[in-house]
């Protein structure tokens, strides 16, 4: 397999909340074009890991390097390359979709002349073209989720980090988000956390299972599924108490 460009390198990061450790010594890399599925039971540290990679919180030890810039030393350079969708959707209810996307685009440092083009492009991708003037507070859960994804991709970052993008959606909406992600994987690397194993099987190239703050599995999906075991039984085995 030919070497692909290294986009994210997570090096030995640990983080605790007070005395309770959330993640311990996590190390992994992501290359261009990869879709990484982050799995694990509730409270395993998935969200913590994602928040550290996107610079929302900082690790107690270890380092995160994004496209060649360390997130602690050069946060502005590093963060330009990330689009992050947190589990709680970061939406302002009193803005319209257009206002919100223009604001997030500017926050991500897009030049004035490109903004309109980029916002329109990401609205088209997320199926929001005809809803620009709708107030966010009047949107359904599925639409809110789409706006959430839209703010993460508006600046076309090389890396998109999505924390449980399909939670709370109906099957139809889940399919929509999935096909959107199939579209996105063409030009972005994606880190995705989820509870739904079939979602990982459908979308990811690589699986990372975290349990109690440690990585218990880091394999390519193809290799993993050549064995007899299904992803579900592997998951159950590895996260057994």
């Amino acid at each position: 397999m030919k070497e692909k460009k290294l986009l994210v390198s997570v090096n030995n990061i640990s983080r605790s909340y007070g005395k309770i450790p959330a993640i311990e010594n996590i190390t992994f890399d992501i290359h261009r074009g990869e879709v990484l599925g982050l799995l694990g039971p509730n409270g395993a540290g998935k969200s913590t890991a994602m928040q550290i990679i996107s610079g929302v919180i900082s690790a107690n030890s270890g380092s995160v390097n994004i496209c060649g810039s360390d997130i602690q030393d050069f946060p502005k350079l590093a963060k330009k390359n990330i689009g992050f969708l947190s589990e709680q959707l970061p939406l302002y209810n009193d803005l319209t979709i257009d206002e919100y996307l223009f604001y997030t685009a500017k926050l991500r440092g897009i030049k004035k002349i490109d903004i309109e083009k980029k916002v329109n492009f990401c609205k088209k991708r997320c199926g929001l073209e005809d809803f620009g003037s709708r107030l966010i507070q009047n949107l359904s859960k599925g639409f809110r989720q789409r706006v959430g994804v839209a703010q993460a991709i508006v600046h076309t970052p090389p890396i998109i980090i999505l924390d449980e993008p399909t939670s709370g959606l109906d099957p139809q909406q889940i399919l929509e988000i999935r096909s959107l992600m199939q579209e996105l994987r063409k030009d972005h690397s994606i880190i995705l956390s989820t509870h739904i194993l079939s979602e990982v099987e459908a979308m990811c190239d690589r699986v990372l299972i975290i349990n109690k703050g440690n990585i218990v599995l880091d394999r390519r999906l193809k290799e993993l599924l050549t064995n007899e075991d299904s992803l579900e039984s592997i998951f159950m085995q590895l996260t057994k108490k």
Partner: protein
Amino acid sequence: MIRNITLISGNELRRLFKSPLAWIILAITQFLVAVFFYIPLIMYLQPNSVASGLTDAVVSTMFGFAAYIILMISPLLTMRLIAEERQLGTIKLLFSSPISITELVLGKFFGITIFYALMIMMITLMPASLLFGTSLDLGQILSSIIGLYLLTITIASIGLFFSSLTKSPVIAAINTYAILFLLLIIKISSTNASTTVAGIFSYLSLDNHYNNFLSGIFNTTDIFYYLIFTSFFISLCIWKLDIERVNK
């Protein structure tokens, strides 16, 4: 840097004016201050009035009351600055965007102080209307405006800091009220104290310095008192948010 600060403050102002809160507060302030403009004016116009001058009797009295009104409504405006971002989860959007915490806090601060500037401008229109009929001491008025603005930005910075401490805007407001009240009554508590303590206490109190501005005394010490207070609370706020990312 400046681009990001204007972006944050622009969004703050936009969201402020989208909510009815900003309009209601502007209207109520204007109404209450108008009452305290009208009453001294009527009293001044009494034939047996002993007041020394129109500016002193009416304009300074009005600005004096305006400060108390702003003191009372300001926590309601500043409470949501950061606490609400946290409640909505949008703080994660801000933290994962290429802007620094200093830019974020300064953006929030300038956003709200621009709103206050607007509010003070509207208040000033009332005494300005007197210029049609008589002459006023413009120097004293200017000094009052500057004093009121400095006092408001100080109050705003205190509110901003307390908003950064919590997830709940209501708790932020209560804390802000508590500290503002303390800074207001600290002077009263000094009445029975020794001269040195009384001096310190009344020096610390928020309105003592403001009274100088009202009487037209434009003193750099007073200006620095407010500016130091403001930058102290802004720095605390930046510090708090910075620490939060490491230890939550």
